[in-house]
């Protein structure tokens, strides 16, 4: 076989250099800053683990909120995506158009989506107007001004945007569930729910892994939607690790502290992804 010569290097070296320069080196340097009190302007001085202890004392409520949002989002977007995929897998004549329609929100910038929803959920916005119009005026409330409804709103907006994307994942997964298997189960006596639980779901396991891990990572890193919808409010009630890092670093100028929290964030994401993959892969035959 001919030796490849120098051509592969022409492709590899620029990409490797870019990756090192833009991804690896800054990440490592940023991690190092986590142990300093750098303010982005003057020289940093070493503070050891002080940033971490400060976060555990003051910032732990942010972790809880991030976990709640992550939980809502992961469950919501995967259930919605799976539901859409099941509904649009066969039969409907308009399914191709509908699939494209459900995917449209996912290709819009999250920030734009969030701003639109901020308008809709505003105190005098369309949602409250519609509720008043249909006589449910008592349900109209400041959705973004109360912690519980604000958290739910953020989760719902995210699910709304990305359900179509997860629908794609599950549509692909459903291709692997042959119709004959479901028919065999039907003849064997399994009703629709039974067929779903015993046949479809187990065969969808690879897609479930992908969907869950991807959505978990997105949820942990959540920033755009929270920033635009609630700004982290009310009173920090919807702050996530992502927004917390932003505020501490870029608004308050505490680059060292922000790096420390960011480091914790990355660690958390990796841990969550690993645990999920372990749990969901199950027994390998």
């Amino acid at each position, binding site marked *: 076989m001919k030796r490849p010569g120098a051509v592969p290097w022409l492709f590899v070296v620029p990409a490797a250099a870019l990756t090192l320069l833009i991804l690896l080196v800054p990440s490592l340097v940023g991690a190092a800053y986590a142990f300093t009190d750098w303010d982005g302007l003057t020289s940093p001085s070493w503070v050891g683990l002080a940033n971490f202890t400060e976060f555990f004392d003051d910032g732990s409520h942010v972790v809880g909120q991030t976990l709640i949002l992550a939980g809502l989002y992961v469950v919501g977007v995967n259930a919605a995506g799976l539901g859409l995929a099941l509904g649009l897998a066969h039969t409907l004549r308009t399914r191709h158009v509908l699939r494209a329609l459900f995917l449209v929100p996912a290709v819009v910038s999250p920030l734009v989506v969030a701003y639109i929803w901020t308008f809709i959920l*505003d105190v005098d916005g369309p949602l409250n107007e519609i509720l008043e119009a249909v006589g449910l005026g008592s349900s109209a409330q400041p959705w973004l001004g109360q912690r519980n409804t604000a958290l739910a709103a953020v989760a719902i907006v995210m699910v709304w945007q990305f359900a179509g994307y997860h629908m794609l994942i599950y549509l692909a997964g459903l291709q692997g569930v042959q119709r004959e298997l479901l028919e065999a189960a039907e003849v064997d006596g399994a009703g629709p729910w039974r067929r779903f639980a015993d046949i479809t779901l187990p065969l969808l396991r690879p897609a479930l892994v992908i969907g869950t891990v991807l959505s978990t990572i997105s949820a942990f890193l959540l920033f755009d939607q929270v920033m635009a919808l609630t700004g982290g409010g009310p009173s920090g009630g919807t702050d996530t690790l992502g927004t917390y890092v932003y505020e501490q670093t870029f608004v308050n100028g505490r680059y060292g502290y922000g790096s420390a929290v960011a480091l914790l964030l990355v660690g958390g994401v990796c841990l969550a992804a690993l645990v999920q993959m372990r749990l969901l892969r199950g027994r390998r035959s």
Partner: protein
Amino acid sequence: MNIRGRALGCAAVAVALLAAAAGCGADAGGDGEIVVSVWDDGREESSIDVAARDFEKAHPDLTVTVQKNPFDQHLQALRRQLGAGRAPDVAMTVVGYGESGTVRALADKGLLADLGESPWAGRLPDTVAGAVGDGSEVYAFPVDSMAIGIVAKKGTDVPGTYTSMLTACRDAGRDGKTAFALGGHENSKMPHIVGFALAASTVYADDPGYGDKRLRDEVTFAGSDGWEQAVARFGEMRDAGCFGENAAGTTREATARALGDGDALMAVTPTVTLPLWQAAAPDAEFVMAPFPGDDDPDRVLVPAGASSGLVVPAKASDAGPGKQFVDFYAKHRARYAEIDGAVPALPDDGGGPRAPGYAAALEPYLRDGRTAPIMDQQWPNPELIARFDSGLVEMLTGRAEPADVLESMDAVWTSEAP
């Protein structure tokens, strides 16, 4: 060397080259070029643009380049430039403390050139001196000024005392309207403005030097009767229905709409934000009036001060050209202020107006010195304003008491910028 070693070697060389190329940014400007970095106020031709042209005419050997950043990102962009060693010659920024990137925050870190020798430095009134320097040194030329008051459509009955204001709130509530449009949404950054308006007539009516004392850690918020009273009055306003029911979740855009549609009668706001309110109701005429923080007219003070300023970053290379431009701008400030439609922070000796036309009701207060500082200009830790906003919103939803709010502010107080 095996394949892997060779690959790493090549990549490392490429990285080094790229890094060297990227790092080779010198300070902007130099060699006859002056870079002025400002925020975009939405106008094609702002006073800085005009000043740049005039300066070039006066100094043919120098060129002036005006860089405009989007308003929201300007302070951060400035910090980045300063941190990366790519500072402009002149920059516009916010005076006092507040966010990271404001005049005093930068000055504390030694990043600004001392402008104390400038011809205009001696003319700084006391109310402004503390915002552009630490009292003894001057780091910024104050450009614009602002005051906090009530904005309403012309012809609205604006209450004159604190008690009559509470009555007006209740009356408005009975008519199905809201007296004060308040955006409690985190991004609106409005609640603390009301807090400042209230505190001006309590804290600073008692002790005009409170701000300096706080900087010296001689007093606390929780221990201040004036602050306690101010925040408690916020609660009284809430109980009188001044802010309506759903203030906590209202965005700034929604408050502008409410004011424009007439669902709300007034709002408490800085003078410089009038265009925002006007935009929601282009056909209406808006005016501003003082906020009646107390029943005793002698205790009513208007929070006022400089808002923006020009600074000259302390650079490795010469800070001279930057200073030249600032001095030039200062000399012609009156004319530039007309172009901007703003009121210069450094008052003309000729006694020109101190407040924009629509805020004529505030003029007597400003002229007679019945003012209080804009409080967050003396708050080094940006976290403080977030706590104040949060605390007031929690009070809106009935989940906090004044003591809680003030204690949370004390908890994050620092006398230096982080």
